[in-house]
């Protein structure tokens, strides 16, 4: 079996001034590298918290999380080096050009060909003509393309995207969704998208609904439809 993330019997709750709030209880979920997942649900249902638990950046109140890599079971802490994030607000560093924003994770890892790889990825997302533009000089769609390139440039095993099209118009949203799914597929990265958008969610192979503290699997689609729709990455 490919590398995967497993959450078993997870319970997440927190204390407010008045009462204790339980986001979800007895939650079980497996995320396999190379497949795509969408998590939908109403605001406040705990979608972002689930994303944080899956990425190993937060601890569950109870339950167990595992990262199985090359057949070896490890704690979710070891997942950190193998993940990338994409945000609704893009979160590019405003002082850096598109090229430097994409090269950032590689530079941090001491990759000497960081700029070349970044150039290749910007070309893949269709921004080879915007290499030296700063975020403020790019449209929302273009900024999200840069963010996708930045998340994938260091070839993580899993990508977590939080409302990646939430800030974009319909046309840009469609383009970004196409790009995101095709790039993850081409890179064999597992993709977990948290979204309110049914259109975006429908692109994923696995669609989950998080509501009233429980996670339900809405459908499993064949991968072929996605491949047909995907543009080249």
């Amino acid at each position, binding site marked *: 079996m490919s590398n995967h993330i497993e959450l078993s019997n997870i319970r997440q709750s927190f204390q407010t001034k008045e009462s204790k709030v339980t986001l979800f209880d007895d939650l079980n979920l497996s995320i396999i590298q190379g497949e795509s997942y969408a998590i939908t649900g109403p605001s406040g249902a705990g979608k972002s918290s689930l994303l944080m638990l899956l990425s190993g950046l937060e601890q569950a109140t109870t339950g167990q999380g595992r990262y199985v890599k090359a057949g070896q079971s490890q704690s979710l802490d070891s997942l950190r080096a193998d*993940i990338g*994030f994409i945000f609704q*607000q893009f979160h590019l560093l405003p*002082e850096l050009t598109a090229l430097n924003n994409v090269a950032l*994770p590689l*530079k941090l890892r001491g*990759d000497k060909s960081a700029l070349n790889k970044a150039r290749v990825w910007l070309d893949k997302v269709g921004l080879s003509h915007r290499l030296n533009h700063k975020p403020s000089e790019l449209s929302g769609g273009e900024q999200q393309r840069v963010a996708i390139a930045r998340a994938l440039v260091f070839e993580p095993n899993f990508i977590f995207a939080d409302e990646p099209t939430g800030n974009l118009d319909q046309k840009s949203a469609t383009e970004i969704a196409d790009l995101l799914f095709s790039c993850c597929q081409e890179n064999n990265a597992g993709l977990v998208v948290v979204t309110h958008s049914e259109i975006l969610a429908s692109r994923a192979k696995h669609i989950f609904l998080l509501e009233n503290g429980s996670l339900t699997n809405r459908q499993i689609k064949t991968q072929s439809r996605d491949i047909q729709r995907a543009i080249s990455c």
Partner: protein
Amino acid sequence: MLAVALTHHLKLAGHFFTQEYSHAHQRLLRWTQGVLLVFIVTLSQSSESIQNYLDNNLQGLLGADAVLSQQQKLTSAQYTALSKLTNEVVVTQQVKVTLSHKGQWQQAKIKAVDNQYPLQGELLTSPTLLGSGQPTYGGPQLGQIWLDARLFASLSLKMGDYIQVAEQRLLVARVLHHEPDRLMEGHNVDMRAMVNAQDMTSLGLSADIIHYRYLIGATSQQITDLLKWQQHDLPAANIHHKQGEHPLALFWQRTENFMGLASIILFFMAAIAIEQLAQVHMKKDQFFTAVCMSLGASNNTGLQVSIFKWLIGLVLLLPVVLLLSTVFHWLIIYWLKETFVNLHWQLQVWSIVKSCSFVMLIFAVFQTPVWFSMYNTSVAKLFNSANKGLSHWFNKVSSILVLLAVAITYSDNGLLTLMMVTAIGITIALMVFLSWSSLTLGEKITQRFSGLLPFSLFMMKQRILSKSTQILGIGLCVFLLLFTLMLLKDLGATMTSYQRQHDGNIMVTQATPLQLTFIEKLAVEKKLTIRQAKSFMYGKLIAVNEQSLVEFSQKPSESMATFKRSVRLHWNDQVPQNNEIVDGEYWSSGTDSWQQISVEEEVMTDLGFVIGDRLTFFIGQQKISFEITASHVFKSGAGTITFWVQMPTAASMHIQASHYNMASLELDDQQSSILATLWQKYPTLRMISLKEITDRFDRILAMITKVISGFSLMIILLAGVVILASISALEAQEKKKNSIIMSFGFSRATCLKLNVIEWLVTASITGLGGVLGTYIAGLLIYQSQFSLTYKPDFIWLTFTLFVILFLVTTLGVYASRNNLRSSVRQLMADN
């Protein structure tokens, strides 16, 4: 309607103020404002107390309605003219002598009075050393001398002893407690003695070393007439009267100006801190205004709320400021009592109101860019909160203008201010260059290497604009702090080492030709070494380009204070070895054109003289005009005796005036008894021993140390605030950067390492910039202002560099620990 709207806005501002109260940017703003307000309010309170003291003191301690004083006795024609103006005149004579008794000596000021003395007020004396002062009418009897208690102690005298002054034996008869015209001694702490006027005549002292003082009883009208007469007939004489200025007023004004000038540095730092904080304020207030506008309100709402919020902050700060400044005011008054006897602490309400309003006005100017940006805001700012552009430059220009205004208002010493401002300018340029070059070079060099250092350099280079503001702010604080500390250290060291570098351990500050001949003869007999001897005569500057000195310049300065008295005029035919010419042309040897002078450069700057100006001096009994043809400065290595004003040798032949000499002697311990012989024969010979010089230096140094230590504390406090403000300004940016780095799969520990590296680089640039700036300031200021050769101690500088590196990095990393409390979740929440 308007009142209702304002009340609503005020309530809203109060609400926001409470919410933001514990936010870092508000806390730092309060600290900046608080420190500066405490400093200025304390300064103005102390100043006001002293001004009041001087005014009241003048009324009670002049000992007359007016006092006319000059070096010479009034001629009989002048005395007759004075008697026509008023018939109440009492003459006193003062002379500085060295009294000796049983091998001990002490310099003192002897006053000779007649039986008419005192004119007004009470003369207090007592027949025993421990007795309290009794009102006494008339001065000492013939052959008697009255001494103050300190003089008794220093010469180990007993009542009934005889003391030898020149050829005269005088009986020690009473203890002198208080003279009603004591005020005229100003802040002079000379020991005092009093003799009968006829004894003074018998002492046979040279007439031109006696200072004559005429105590005059006069009505207001008579004083007016007296002033007119003095200006016309006795322009070189000094006159003080009850409606005029206290003799200490100028001294205090200069002290005040020095403190004011020093406060520029504090204002400068406050401006940096507020400028850094303004970035946060601007963003927050602009956002609020944009939200208000999107809800249908005008941009005035945001503007008014922002102004009210700022005002509430200041108003709530005032009680703390008043309490602290009152305590400091009390402490300062307590300390100043040594100089201003009977000075009392008193709350000066009007002065508080004035100084608070002044500082608040300056704060308002510093804050204007925030309000300006508010005025220009639009709903579009909700989507794009760029704060650069016009308001960014407006911010810088307004701060610089305010600082310049403060500098001009307080400047006492034009050259020093100019040099300080130049040094700050050079340091800024240096720091900008250092930031840019080291980051560019560092990034280029480390491009081929992997790791966190190349990444940090890369990030810093990419964010050079915001980073350089931080570097500049901290760097300037480091520079100002370092320079202040270096000055304190070097002044102390120079004063201590002065005794060793000094050519000779006895300085003769005034010897008549007869006295000098005697010293020369003695030198041959006793094998003393005379290191230097230079002639001079006294002259009082009375006009510049036909304008009186008072009309020409009203700006108090060190030079002006000295030129209000007679100054020494030296003559020579060649530029002295310890001088060099910096402007104009020095006369050639043997010139006949004797009405030309060379003036020291600092004096030229302070008084605004230029080459070609005509200075009129009152020398002897004549008015003589000179043209400034050259300007000179002191050059070390060839003796320390130098003069502010020099003229050709030919001038000394044309001018009828007493000649004196300055000289330096070298005496070993066994030869010190010669001094007693010298002073017994010539009590008016003005000599100062190495020990006295050292004691005086120690006293001055102790005072300077107190002032500079207190001042350094203020700078350290503000430097800390500036560092925190610069971190606060970049906090949001840093937090985001850390979150993004964590979203690439890195841990918090990596962010901490990056943070440490970034602060190390920042501290290196600021430290290096600060040390280089201090070095340049030393080169510029030391020679010109303190006549010191600047010899930087590189070990000390390197040590300081490492201390700065350590302190800035530690404070930076500690203060920015908040930035590490970021997480990927915050990026998600930032929707």
